[in-house]
């Protein structure tokens, strides 16, 4: 019998979404290796990690024996090995961005410091993995694999030494005080280098056997900068330094080390050539850092996403049980059964937290999957360029300028119906690895900093809301789910691997890439189609908000302020940075909608998921609508401030100042009419978004949750 929407209640959330739901939404339902890795990471997170936090291990800066027990636990669970390729002792084939991101989420669900501890080992290896010679890769990565049955060797662990003592490297990675010079260079011999490096806030330094250190040449016989591998047994000083007195992430070891070591030149990551008696490292430190951080930053952003999602269950339980136990509150009464969930405010605020967590997770995992797609294409691109003698850096940038036209052509063809486009040309461009690289890369260059910036920065603010929903309990060590710790930790996630300003700076450049903007326009078209098929999911709202953002960017790029100064300019961060923030809201909301559509499409094929699918999709669609409305509102506010805010104040009767965008009657000029129309359209598109929030809030009062949290407090 068909349902009657007028009389049948709308299906909604029955239980909290489980693994089978997440596997579909986050696209690893066919990846059994990842599903198992998640389970093993979870057992570590909700076992030893949770016990350490509950026992107060975070109350010390030092790397204690208790904390050190994390390392063998990571080894046994496959967390250490998942970064390696099978020939190096790993068990996951192919790119591992999604795998590492999922591990980061699982650990951060309980404690982000433990997650950082795990990721930092990979970070140390990443320069070697991304740009090392084959010999360097095999040597170091195989040593970082835990000993297998019967092997008698010590596992190596690494640290990545980039940051230096203040006032040097922080935001500006181009300045290095660490130096490298030639100590000995016998005729026909490999040069021996003297490395002097002081570093700050170096994760894993309390136990690392080697470090990858960024240094600059202090010798005319070495060109530029490089990253070099230092081992604890190298001659000289390998001083781990004092523990950093950080206030968060205490389950990761962080020290301020000092190195003064002699090492062979073969330790330069990526190798070197000698020209006219000068050592030319194949990659300078900036090139390596760019290759490394553009991937690892995604995992950091996902830590905060996991924490937001982890807050949902403890908050619901706290609200429901809030008054139980009081003598005057008897079972069967609303106060006993519903507790604080009788109050709309706490329900709706939790809806906002959950919606933010969903959007953050969807954005970060979309970025991780994109990098998995990009990695093999990048290798083909590198190979093709090498065959053509096109070196990394400026030469590649120049080559890309010609290829970007083909990328734009492909994006245009892809938007046309297959029957109407030049299919042969479409196929040719589709199989052109360099063209595809350019398209994927343009997206990765936005999604990665967006994940890092929005998930951690906005996520930290929303974590504060989560803490406040637990009342005084939230700010104690006893808070179920460790929410207070998670809130504080989020501030470091916003800082690690490039603070917010670095991400905004990167976005302000990459979001104006013409290839990205063409992709962005295709996303708007796609959302319009989604909006037609699923009107309640917020896609139309988001599409309009994206049009408004797009219009605003173009306006700011072409216009000047009231004083005639260019608006969109590299140094004018008051214009470019807020627009970057606005974009993050939009791409996060888009990713969230796409994940829910994936669930709706693939869920029916899974008998378990199909059981409660209608309700789940309804609920998640409501969360999408809530988030799209927030994203549209925030983005539109920024756009309006940017467009109007640089105009002169309306002049008095008869007068008109430079840049004044209003006529004598106060109406906007024709140039701004499209903006006004879009804003009106946007406001109207919010219809139903608050009803969606009401429904989602109501669902929180009914959803079944476990009797207790599955990790200690």
């Amino acid at each position, binding site marked *: 019998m068909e349902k009657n929407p007028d009389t049948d209640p709308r299906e909604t959330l029955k239980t909290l979404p*489980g693994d*089978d739901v997440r596997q579909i939404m986050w696209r690893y339902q066919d990846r*059994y290796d990842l599903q*198992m890795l998640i*389970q*093993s990471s979870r057992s570590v997170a909700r076992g030893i990690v949770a016990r350490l936090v509950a026992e107060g291990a975070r109350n010390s800066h030092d790397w204690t024996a208790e904390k050190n027990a994390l390392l063998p636990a990571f080894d046994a669970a496959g967390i250490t090995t998942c970064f390696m390729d099978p020939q190096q002792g790993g068990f996951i084939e192919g790119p591992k961005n999604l795998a590492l991101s999922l591990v980061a989420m699982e650990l951060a669900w309980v404690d982000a410091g433990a997650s950082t501890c795990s990721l930092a080992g990979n970070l140390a290896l990443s320069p070697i993995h991304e740009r090392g010679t084959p010999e360097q890769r095999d040597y170091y990565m195989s040593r970082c694999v835990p000993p297998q049955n019967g092997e008698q060797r010590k596992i190596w662990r690494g640290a990545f030494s980039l940051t230096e003592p203040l006032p040097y490297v922080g935001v500006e990675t181009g300045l290095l005080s660490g130096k490298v010079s030639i100590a000995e260079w016998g005729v026909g011999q490999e040069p021996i280098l003297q490395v002097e490096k002081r570093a700050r806030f170096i994760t894993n330094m309390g136990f690392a056997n080697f470090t990858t250190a960024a240094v600059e040449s202090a010798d005319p016989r070495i060109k530029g900068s490089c990253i070099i591998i230092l081992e604890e047994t190298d001659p000289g000083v390998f001083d781990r330094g004092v523990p950093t007195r950080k206030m968060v992430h205490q389950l990761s070891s962080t020290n301020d080390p000092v190195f003064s070591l002699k090492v062979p030149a073969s330790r330069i990551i990526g190798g070197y050539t000698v020209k006219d008696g000068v050592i030319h490292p194949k990659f300078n430190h900036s090139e390596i850092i760019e290759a490394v951080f553009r991937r690892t930053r995604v995992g950091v952003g996902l830590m905060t996403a996991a924490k937001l999602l982890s807050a949902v269950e403890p908050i619901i339980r706290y609200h429901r049980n809030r008054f139980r136990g009081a003598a005057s509150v008897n079972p069967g009464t609303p106060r006993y059964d519903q507790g604080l969930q009788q109050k709309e405010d706490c329900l709706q605020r939790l809806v906002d937290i959950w919606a933010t967590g969903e959007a953050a997770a969807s954005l970060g995992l979309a970025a991780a999957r994109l990098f998995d797609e990009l990695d093999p294409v990048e290798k083909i691109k590198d190979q093709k360029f090498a065959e053509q003698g096109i070196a990394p850096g400026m030469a590649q940038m120049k080559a890309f300028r010609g290829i970007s036209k083909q990328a734009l052509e492909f994006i245009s063809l892809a938007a046309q119906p297959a029957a109407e486009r030049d299919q042969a040309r479409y196929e040719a461009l589709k199989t052109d690895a360099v063209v595809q690289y350019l398209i994927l890369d343009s997206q990765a260059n936005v999604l990665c900093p967006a994940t890092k910036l929005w998930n951690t920065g906005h996520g930290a603010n929303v974590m504060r809301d989560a803490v406040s929903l637990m009342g005084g309990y939230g700010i104690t060590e006893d808070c179920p789910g460790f929410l207070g710790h998670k809130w504080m930790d989020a501030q470091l996630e916003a800082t690690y691997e490039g603070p917010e300003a670095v991400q905004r700076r990167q976005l302000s450049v990459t979001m104006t890439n013409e290839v990205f903007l063409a992709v962005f326009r295709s996303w708007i078209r796609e959302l319009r189609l989604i909006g037609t098929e699923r009107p309640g999911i917020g896609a139309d709202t988001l599409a309009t908000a994206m049009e408004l953002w797009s219009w605003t960017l173009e306006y700011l790029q072409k216009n000047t302020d009231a004083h005639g100064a260019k608006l969109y300019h590299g140094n004018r961060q008051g214009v470019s940075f807020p627009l970057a923030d606005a974009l993050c809201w939009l791409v996060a909301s888009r990713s969230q909608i796409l994940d829910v559509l994936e669930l709706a499409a693939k869920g029916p094929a899974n008998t378990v998921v199909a059981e409660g699918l209608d309700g789940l999709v309804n609920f998640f669609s409501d969360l999408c609508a809530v988030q799209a409305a927030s994203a549209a509102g925030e983005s539109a506010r920024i756009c309006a401030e940017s467009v109007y805010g640089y105009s002169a104040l309306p002049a008095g009767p008869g007068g008109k100042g430079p840049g004044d965008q209003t006529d004598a009657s106060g109406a906007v000029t024709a140039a701004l009419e499209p903006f006004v129309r879009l804003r009106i359209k946007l406001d109207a598109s919010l219809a139903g978004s608050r009803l969606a929030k009401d429904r989602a809030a109501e669902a929180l009062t009914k959803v*079944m949750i476990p*009797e207790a949290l599955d990790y200690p407090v």
Partner: protein
Amino acid sequence: MPTSYHIVVCGSIVPDPLQTLEPVTTPTGPALKNELLLPAVLDPWAGHALFEAAHLAKQHPGSKVWLVSIGPKAKLQQVMMTVAQKVPFELIAIDGPAGGFTESAEIAAALAEAIQGLPGLDKSRLLVFGGWESATRGAGTTLQMVGERLGIVDQFQGVDQLTVRPDGSFQVLERIEGGRHQVSSCGALPALCGWATGNLPEPPNNPQVGMLNMRTVMPALQRAKPTKISNEGVTFPSVSLPKQRRETKIVKDMPPDDIAREIVEWIGKE
């Protein structure tokens, strides 16, 4: 007596014990509210049996372990992502219902049929393991009927320890009243052991073990035969939660004596 074994472990899934389990009435009989949507785990009793089986197999090279499991295929697959990481085994999956309201005689028949159909199974080396009872229902009847159908007369229930002697015979410790064990000797196979908790800790997850197991687990799930458990003739006059409920509370640094006293008081109220 053989020096290597064919160990068949019978075990399925149960809802994660942390979940809220609420009986409801459906058109087909009683069920747990949203049971299919709740996360599941391998039945802890069957889990002990599996870990004991793997331990025994490891000590006796040439042995092989099968896990025969009836449950909803998609749910079984989810649970295997954890279980398959713990010890090596080959899965024999049967797509059917799992839960506390299925007729144990029918489940036993399906399990016995699956065991009889195992290619290369040597009954002279056969040990059938399973949970003495189940976390979904403490009737303790299924495994006994599996044994009967397979013609296994040497059956031990509530087993905590199985020790192989140098001559190949083995000693079995079965739980009896008063925290004591009944000690038995068995000199011939096949035999059946319904395990209590055993003595082994749960092995840690190891994805590399899992990757090896997955070579057979996934194909087994794909070819899992559907089986119909009709529950014909079975009626449930009433279904309810135990009246005596323990409310979870969190108290730090409570002395063990106080904890024990509180538990005794709680039991005494029943």
